[in-house]
């Protein structure tokens, strides 16, 4: 049929154009703008510190934020575009923004960068001076001694083991008892109590607040950490779990002797941080563009100039086209039916937020209980919209129940059940139960297992840091994926499963 041949030919030309365009753009970026295909290439951290506030009428606003202390090998610098400025106030440098009244905005963003600076290694941190000025009541001292004896009576543990053990002990204690140890301090009880206990052992420690530089979370609140000096260096411990954080991935925002941020002229305020990695090539691209055009707004035209939290959201999306291609392969080339076309991808995205194993267990649990309840609902002869709505509500309740139970039983990995796309799960349950009625249990279970496996495969693709880097930095490569999907749309060959299914038809 000439018409269909014409369509086919124009499709091939379109796909060829897509591939050529994608490769050309990628080549230009690599060759002229210094992007690299290796995700070990140079990058810097871009941190957005967002302050939200309610300005008081007729008053100027002044915000001052503590200068962060970058980890070893990283240098701090304000982003050229940020309205904040560095001010030297009685020997302490802080980032300051002053807004003249009347203030119309209720949000200010301070953007800064951590640039690798291996040549200018930060000087070794000084050992803290041993001040024994802490005033402790006798009662506190006795209680503290009791705890220390319980953990390490013979004083044999090295600090690296003692600190996690102490934090574990403190974590299990009720808040009231910890408060009793440190009645005057205003900080985090666990951290403050740990500082006191370590003090008694002669180990210097301090409280710090900071954020993790890995990009798992979109918006981070600074958390309290315990900073302990031993072996000639500071070590940062997370009070809740007693685990030590890698210093390279931890940004200290504030130490106990300074305030994190001060703000005047407002009623309420809050602060949040988001971090993203920016490949160095992109920065050069931005610079070159800015030089050529000498206009800031145009140089901003790239994914890399978005706020860090948005960039992180896009990084998640960067791999979505690849996962969708995988779904097309699974369904049309391999021939495994999944329950709901894109359900596995969405479930895989949820697995990303909560790790594979807890995610899988949670998913299977919610699905099983959901199906049981749905089976009971079907006896009530409900109409479709109320029925599916009832399933949605049941799924929400189940997630809450799992979260609460996991929290109670101390399985922190299972607390995050809320990441599951509720509506998708409800539809999966609905579809599974009608398939069950029409096609029987075996077929339904087959499809459910296939969908879950597909979700797990998607998870492995989506969680690849390298693929994420490449497809985010070279977003144009998605055009190639689009081309492949278009081509698969005309694939009329056999599916892999059909090679088994129709095997009896081949005469020997």
């Amino acid at each position, binding site marked *: 049929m000439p018409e269909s041949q014409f369509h086919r030919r124009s499709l091939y030309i379109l796909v060829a154009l897509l591939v050529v365009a994608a490769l050309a753009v990628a080549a230009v970026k690599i060759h002229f703008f210094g992007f690299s295909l290796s995700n070990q290439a140079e990058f810097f951290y871009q941190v957005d510190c967002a302050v939200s506030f309610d300005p008081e009428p007729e008053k100027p606003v002044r915000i001052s934020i503590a200068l962060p202390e970058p980890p070893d090998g990283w240098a701090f610098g304000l982003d050229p575009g940020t309205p904040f400025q560095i001010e030297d106030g009685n020997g302490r440098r802080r980032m300051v923004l002053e807004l003249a009244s009347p203030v119309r905005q209720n949000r200010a963003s301070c953007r800064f960068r951590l640039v690798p600076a291996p040549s200018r290694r930060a000087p070794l941190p000084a050992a803290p001076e041993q001040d024994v000025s802490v005033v402790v009541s006798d009662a506190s001292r006795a209680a503290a001694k009791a705890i220390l004896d319980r953990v390490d009576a013979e004083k044999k543990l090295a600090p690296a083991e003692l600190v996690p053990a102490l934090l574990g002990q403190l974590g299990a204690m009720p808040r009231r008892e910890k408060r009793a140890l440190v009645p005057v301090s205003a900080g985090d009880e666990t951290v403050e109590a740990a500082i006191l206990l370590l003090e008694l052992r002669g180990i210097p420690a301090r409280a710090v607040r900071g954020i993790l530089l890995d990009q798992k979370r979109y918006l981070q609140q600074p958390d309290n950490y315990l900073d302990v000096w031993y072996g000639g260096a500071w070590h940062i411990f997370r009070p809740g779990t007693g685990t030590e954080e890698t210093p390279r991935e931890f940004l200290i925002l504030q130490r106990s002797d300074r305030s994190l941020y001060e703000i005047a002229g407002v009623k309420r305020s809050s602060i949040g941080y988001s971090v993203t990695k920016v490949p160095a090539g992109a920065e050069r691209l931005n610079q070159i563009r800015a030089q050529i055009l000498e206009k800031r707004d145009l140089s901003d035209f790239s994914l890399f100039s978005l706020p860090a939290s948005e960039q992180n959201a896009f990084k998640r999306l960067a791999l979505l086209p690849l996962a969708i291609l995988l779904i097309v392969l699974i369904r049309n080339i391999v021939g495994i039916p999944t329950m709901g076309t894109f359900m596995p991808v969405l479930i895989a995205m949820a697995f990303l937020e909560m790790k594979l194993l807890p995610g899988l267990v949670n998913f299977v649990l919610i699905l099983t209980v959901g199906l049981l309840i749905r089976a009971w609902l079907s006896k009530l002869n409900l109409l479709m919209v109320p029925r599916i709505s009832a399933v949605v509500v049941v799924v929400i309740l189940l997630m809450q129940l799992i979260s609460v139970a996991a929290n109670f039983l101390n399985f922190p990995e299972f607390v995050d059940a809320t990441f599951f796309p509720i509506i998708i799960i409800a539809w999966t349950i609905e579809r599974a139960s009608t398939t069950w009625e029409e096609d029987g249990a075996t077929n339904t279970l087959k499809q459910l297992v296939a969908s879950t496996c597909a979700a797990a495969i998607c998870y492995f693709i989506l969680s690849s840091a390298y693929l994420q880097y490449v497809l985010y930095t070279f977003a144009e490569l998605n055009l190639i994926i689009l081309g492949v999907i278009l081509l698969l749309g*005309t694939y009329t060959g056999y599916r892999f499963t*059909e*090679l088994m299914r*129709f095997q009896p038809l081949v005469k020997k």
Partner: protein
Amino acid sequence: MKRFRLSLPRIVSPRSLRRAGVLGMNQRNHAYIMRYNRRADYPDVDDKLRTKQLAIRYGVATAELIGSIESQYQVRSFLDLVANAPDFVIKPGHGSGGRGILVITHHDGVKFHKPNGEICDYDFIYEHISNILSGLYSLGGQVDYALFERCIDFSDVYSRFSFQGVPDVRLIVFKGYPVMSMIRLATKESDGRANLHQGAVGVGLSIRDGRPRFAASHNREVTHHPDTGAAFSELVVPHWEEHLELAARCAEMTPLGYFGADIATDRKRGPLLLELNARPGLAIQIANGQGLLSRLQLIESLPPGAHPTRAEKIAFAREHFD
């Protein structure tokens, strides 16, 4: 208990499948359904009342239409509708998979008898019709209507070959030619339903004479019914010519070029059209032990207008498709 066979699945090469003329799912969708069936014509088969009206107009025999109920206020008057019908079947107009079908074999206006001997009352049927109208059984839950037709008095010629359930003959019709056929027989495993992937047996029928050619269950050849023990080679489909005639007529009542026609045989009226399907499955190839693709390609290779009449098309099909 189901026994699981521990043999590794055998895989054949795509080349040998193509040589055997097997039609795959991608090719069915792309080269046949998308090319020969326009979306706009799907209501011809998805809307049961429309199918029925078309069938009546084109002289295709179906179960006799009694009427339909579209809105809630008409529900209470359903007794007037069935007053003159000794038996009736209520179906959702957009149903599928047999859901929402209520069969009443006889009634006196007060007591309504179901085939399994249960008796239900006015309220039960009132409720059932209301449920159909509100979309309980329709795809996607949209509002629906209830269709009333006479009960098919299933001929018992197949009773030796079916464990409960009523067998129906499926014919694939392509461009007006009946190209392949099978009869689906319920088993204990398929729970009295005639769905192949639930374990029903598909017996391939020769287009030439309706004689059984091959039988398969779960992708494997079978020779005897697993429950009744009857040999499939002895199966005879009565009124075979009428089956072909009925299927070929269906091609005239809808512009769809590729569809499946399900035909049941009534004791008195002979073969009747049950329903049409715009996406007939591929398992019919396994039931026939033969590929569908070579037959479809033979039809496609014919010059346009090669067989202008129904009779010529049927004659051609009977000559070539054994």
